[in-house]
């Protein structure tokens, strides 16, 4: 099969890929293709049938399929090319993209590649939960797929480990379908999901959430028969003597998301050990020229609205890259103190307005975040409350940047 040349190849037709494609077309880029491995566009939103999407981006509350539907309609209306049932298996540093499809091996030569592959769930194996390995242990997103897309119920007596948003949403979903969700356990001393989900998915259904607790044993030979839970100390180590047994047939895990960057690594993109996503500049360009990343493949977001907005900003830069040929050098590094877990971008030029996305490492009250350059504060954000579950975004205009020196973000309480 002949190599197909494209201005932009977008890997992934979820919220990031769709928003990037639409915005690229709005910016006048014609020669685009979205490559999607599923049978339909929409990504993970296809299985997110609950509402609460779109409050920021569309000023209204939508279900996942409704939210992605708005972008898919635009993709169709704007005649943006896409293929489904095609899985990208390799991207070379020269931006050759190879996909497997029923039509054969497809080979694209891209001028720019947009990485929009999203993220995957952390698994039982990654956190080494002790005990046996019976059926009935499901990642929250997998259970969500079985229930919402396959009409298949995964269990009746449920325990949830991890207070991630998908876990809490599944607590409500399974309760509504007649399952008994006994409790949610979180190893950290604070919840990892959004306050609104604690209210709407747990509190409203009288499902208890225990922080500083973890599962220290899974029991059962064929199917899960029960679990043992222990309290943990400040180092998240189980405290002997605090064990409590629960009988259940199902364990749902919602213990974190990991950006899916195997293809990024294949084309030489350098990752940030903190985000597990690419190191990018203010244009969302990675360390490989012409390869861009946005959405959950770059950093795990709290809300899909911010994924779309990030992808739209990426598209503005990619359009410039296609039209101008190259983007400004970004030599100014953004560093942080220990209270901040990471920032996106990691580098800026100083000649363009930009936005920093970040999260705090632990819950903070009445704090301010100072953006510093050369010991001078260039921007301050005051916050009554900052929690790790919520992404914080700080807009900074180029006029604030006074030199080519690095920027440091500091939290003061």
């Amino acid at each position, binding site marked *: 099969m002949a190599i197909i040349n494209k201005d932009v190849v977008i890997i992934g037709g979820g919220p990031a890929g769709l928003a990037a494609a639409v915005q690229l077309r709005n910016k006048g880029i014609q020669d685009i293709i979205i490559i999607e491995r599923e049978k339909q566009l929409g990504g993970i939103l296809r299985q997110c049938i609950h509402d609460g999407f779109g409050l920021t981006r569309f000023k209204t509350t939508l279900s996942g399929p409704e939210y992605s539907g708005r972008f898919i309609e635009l993709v169709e209306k704007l005649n943006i090319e896409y293929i489904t049932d095609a*899985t990208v298996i390799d991207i070379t540093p020269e931006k050759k993209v190879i996909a497997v499809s029923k039509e054969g091996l497809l080979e694209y030569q891209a001028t720019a590649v947009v990485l929009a592959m999203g993220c995957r769930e952390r698994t039982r194996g990654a956190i080494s939960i002790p005990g046996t390995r019976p059926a009935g242990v499901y990642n929250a997103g997998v259970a969500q797929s*079985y229930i919402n897309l396959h009409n298949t119920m995964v269990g009746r007596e449920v325990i949830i480990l991890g207070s991630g948003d998908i876990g809490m949403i599944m607590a409500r979903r399974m309760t509504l379908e007649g399952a008994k969700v006994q409790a949610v356990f979180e190893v950290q001393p604070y919840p990892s999901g959004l306050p609104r989900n604690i209210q709407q998915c747990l509190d409203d259904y009288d499902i208890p959430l225990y922080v500083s607790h973890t599962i220290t044993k899974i029991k059962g030979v064929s199917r899960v028969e029960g679990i043992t839970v222990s309290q943990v100390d400040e180092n998240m180590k189980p405290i002997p003597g605090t064990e409590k047994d629960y009988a259940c047939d199902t364990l749902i895990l919602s213990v974190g998301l990991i950006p899916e960057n195997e293809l990024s690594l294949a084309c030489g993109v350098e990752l940030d050990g903190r985000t597990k996503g690419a190191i990018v500049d203010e244009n969302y360009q990675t360390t490989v020229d012409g390869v861009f990343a946005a959405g959950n493949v770059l950093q795990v977001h709290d809300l899909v609205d911010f994924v779309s907005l990030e992808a739209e900003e990426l598209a503005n830069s990619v359009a410039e890259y296609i039209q101008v040929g190259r983007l400004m050098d970004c030599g100014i590094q953004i560093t942080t103190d220990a209270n901040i877990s990471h920032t996106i971008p990691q580098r800026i030029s100083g000649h363009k307005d930009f936005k920093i996305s970040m999260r705090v490492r632990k819950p903070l009250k009445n704090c301010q975040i100072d953006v510093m350059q050369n010991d001078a504060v260039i921007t301050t954000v005051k916050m009554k409350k900052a929690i790790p579950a919520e992404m914080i975004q700080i807009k900074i205009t180029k006029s604030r940047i006074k030199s080519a020196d690095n920027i440091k973000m500091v939290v003061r309480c």
Partner: protein
Amino acid sequence: MNEVYDVVIIGAGVIGSAIARELSRYDLKIAVLDKELDVCCETSGRNSGVLHGGFTYKTGSLKAQCSVEGNAEFDKVAAELDVPFKRTGKVVVGFTESDMKSLLKYKAIGEANGVPGLEIVDKQRLEELDSSAGGEFAMYSPTSGILNPFIYTVALAENAQQNGVKFYFDREVSGINRKNGIYEITTPKEVYKTRWVVNCAGLNSAKISTMLGIDGYTLGGFKGEYFVLDKKVGKYLNMPVYPAPGPTGGFATHATPTVDGNVLIGPDSALVDDFTDYGITSPAMEKLIIDGAKMFKHVKREHFIRNFSGIRPKLIDKDTRQVLDFVLESRDEVPNVINLVGIESPGLTSALPLARRAVALLKEKETLLPNEKFNPRRRGILCFAAQSDEVKKELIAKDPNYGEIICRCETVTKAEIVQAVNNCLGVETVMGIKNRTRATMGRCQGGYCETRIVEIIQEQLNKQATEVLYGRTGSTMFTGKVRG
């Protein structure tokens, strides 16, 4: 059932499958019974997957003879049965003077056993052999290797099946009687009649032995836990790296590459009474991390993708508590029984040599006619991911299911899953598909593909979701439909 088999083999691990395959060279009516839903569910599938050189076993023992013989012939066996195998070599590393003494001792034993090419290497040479290995010096065994233990057992069983052997799963043997020269073997589903019984029941071999009338064997269950590491670090490890055995012999935690490119860290060793508990434990895992890091420099939590454990059935001398050699016997007072007890490591390496010896015992009593249709060759499921772009294109053109990636981490296509679902042994579990294709074995652990595999099982075998099993009897994955 009135059918009378010539031979019934109890246990479809690597030994039972190898004996089935070797017996299928003859004109015999053979059945294999296993209590699980697939071959290789216990000790045979829960180990390091190493083809041993044979340098740690007492000279003249069955363990020594069979491992040396099995090692020497494995290139041919792997080619014949289409088993993923690499003759990587292996290093047994040391840090102290007493380690050096231990290595010299095992080098001498190895040479007496007929293990070729053993040499003591210094740190520089060790670095060249494997720069990710710990240790100040090592014994290098060039003939050691790695193989896929699941595929090897599946291959033996499939080849046996293709040559006429019947496999019956979910058949836990609860009693054996002998009437008029015919054994009657009771299982929850049927009673099997047979002239000969071969006991290859592994962890339950002492129990079956007692049922057959051969008493007095005591098995010690040596449980070992493992970590499976991401393929991202697999590129660093060229060969298994073992620590020098201590004064009591036996290997402690080692690092082993798998033929697929992962790394295994383990096992530890703990004596257990419960031969059915494969649970993993926190203290063992903590210790594995420390011990494993001494063997392999890239042991990091971010690369952990799974844990498992295995239990080795070691035959123990009741008085001295010493670990004894494999037992392979046929006693006159218990006619028409081939009894194998205490088959543990190096059982994988020794499987075919042991099988040939088992057949020889049977041949001492009966003249066997050849199976004229016997074909020693078996082909496995072609691995799409390992093919060149040209071959990939041809495969998709021939069968569009090759163009549908089901498992993204391991790049397993629908065509491979469909072949696995329709395997000739009739195995229908998700674990069965996993072990035949690698689907769900990657870093997302089935997060993406498990729903798809379940769908294909349902579609190919015309099953309801509630009938799909994860691995064992009763391991139902679903409780019903969400909405009618």
